[in-house]
């Protein structure tokens, strides 16, 4: 399996060398990274080329790298402080400030492809250039199944897909504001809903519950399993 992937990797690299940012085989999966402007060209190649033959798009997934590698509990020191993050705010301007501290590309779009003809998979990854207004080209024309997956990524992450025929929200409520899967969107949400007896209608109010973390997020230095996975390759 791995050898076949290696071959596929070299084939793609030979054919599209300048368009591929990076390619990597890990855990028996091939990931190639492209710039957003090359996405359409690379995608078309992957679908139409006989060796690749990725006729089916399995998944489009947005990823927000805002808090990547952040842990809530310091394992190197000896502090027993509970590192719960409570500094969230309903005020949008404050949220944006923490945004600005982030350097690098925040949003990525990950596409999983499957070739039924050749029985292999590939992962296509592209990072959006602008963190404030992430845009990538839509691949709906190449694989029609991308339609809803891109709508989902737009809904949950606010990633815009250029050329999408119908970029509406899909999973969240009618009239929802914000993009809930962004890392700066609190897990408990922004608003809560109840029926108001006096107004005789459903009203939205800021959430009244406190965010809490039961198990802190911990990143351990000793990655005892990473060695095992490297041997497998």
């Amino acid at each position, binding site marked *: 399996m791995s050898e076949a992937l290696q071959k596929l990797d070299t084939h793609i690299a030979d054919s599209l060398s300048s368009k591929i940012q990076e390619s990597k085989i890990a855990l028996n999966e091939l990931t190639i990274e492209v710039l957003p402007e090359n996405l359409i060209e690379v995608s078309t190649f992957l679908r139409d080329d006989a060796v690749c033959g990725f*006729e*089916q798009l399995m998944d489009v997934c947005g990823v927000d790298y805002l808090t990547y590698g952040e842990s809530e509990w310091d394992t190197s020191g000896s502090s027993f402080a509970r590192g719960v993050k409570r500094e969230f705010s309903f005020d949008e301007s404050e949220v944006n400030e923490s945004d600005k501290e982030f350097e690098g590309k925040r949003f990525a779009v990950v596409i999983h492809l499957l070739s*039924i003809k050749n029985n292999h998979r590939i*992962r296509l990854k592209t990072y959006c250039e602008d963190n404030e207004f992430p845009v990538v080209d839509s691949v709906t024309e190449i694989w029609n199944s991308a339609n809803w997956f891109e709508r989902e990524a737009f809904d949950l992450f606010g990633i815009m897909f250029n050329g999408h025929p119908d970029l509406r929200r899909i*999973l*969240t409520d009618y009239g929802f504001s914000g993009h809930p899967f962004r890392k700066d969107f609190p897990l408990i949400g922004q608003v809560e809903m109840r029926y108001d007896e006096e107004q005789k209608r459903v009203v939205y109010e800021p959430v009244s519950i406190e965010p809490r973390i039961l198990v802190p997020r*911990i*990143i351990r230095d000793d990655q005892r*399993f990473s060695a095992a996975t490297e041997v497998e390759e």
Partner: protein
Amino acid sequence: MPEIRNFTLNFGPAHPAAHGVLRLVLEMDGEVIQRADPHVGLLHRGTEKLAESKPYNQSIGYMDRLDYVSMMCNEHGYVLALEKMLGIEAPIRAQYIRTMFDEITRILNHLLWIGAHALDVGAMTMFLYAFREREDLMDVYEAVSGARLHATYYRPGGVYRDLPDTMPLHEKSRWYSDADIERLNQTRSGSVLDFIEDFTNRFPGCVDEYETLLTDNRIWKQRLVDIGIVSPERALQLGLTGAMLRGSGIEWDLRKKQPYAMYDQVDFDIPVGVNGDSYDRYLVRIEEMRQSNKIIKQCVDWLRVNPGSVIHHDHKITPPNREAMKGDMEALIHHFKLATEGYCLPEGEAYAAIEHPKGEFGCYIVSDGANKPYRLKIRAPGFAHMSAMDELTKGHMLADVVTIIGTMDIVFGEVDR
């Protein structure tokens, strides 16, 4: 007065044939559908976001609640992704147990599908027949995990526990006479494997019964034949998987093509349709039930003669047994660490897919080395199927929409996540 031609109809979200909470906005010309716009998300719970705030093991239970009629298959997709990143493999007995339960789950799913599908189309009896068999399989779920639906039975590195030696028995109540109890308990006197074997012996007869009711039934055929035809090319373009793809004549089954668990060790066939219409998909799923039954039988035979461990021995990932915890300090610490912190996955990303009863169910995990996923993406087959709704229903009559929803085997737990 101007002639009003197009008419917009709201189908659902409380329509019984909407299979839960589908709101379908149909633009119609008379009784013919011009455009279908499904509004999904009414059951959106943010499973993926919730998983980001929990240690890996605590999200296994959420997987059951995605597609709540094929619970263990969802778990399987998730634990496979975890195992891939951890670089561990479950013991062989656990793999056989998983294979067996995946197939039990497949039958459970297809039974509910055929019951609901037939009910939508107008055949009441099927629903009652299907639930008769479902009851037995849910008892098996209960025997191994304690829960009839949301089992949370799979773990990264194996399954929660070995198959028990006894089946729970029916007890006397005011609804059952002694004779009833004796009849109900007849097959339950042995172990769980005995009960499952007994089931596999009578299940083909049950499928024959379903087929007698439906396969040559004139009304059933009038409602299903040539409804919702998908060509193989379009099926690929639309991202259809599972029976939706095989109904169109493409022989693709992850159990055969990219085998996981013990599927390369068991003997079974992949049924494929010809016309790609609802009737072909019905035939494919019926045959899948027979094939699943065959796989279960093989697994039972293997499990009978091969005792062994059912969970990985590394206690950094799986808890030590209760007895050891009481006496052994190290076991206690392992348990404490697992319960309070969990385990950390190495940094990286992985995608694992399984052949879920509805299609390809995949889990994509991005880890930054923490004890919680950085991002978990669930690729639910129903989501892609639902997005094909517009194309499948275009040009059909309103009554055919019900057939098409039925043939897609939609469950909103996984579509909305």
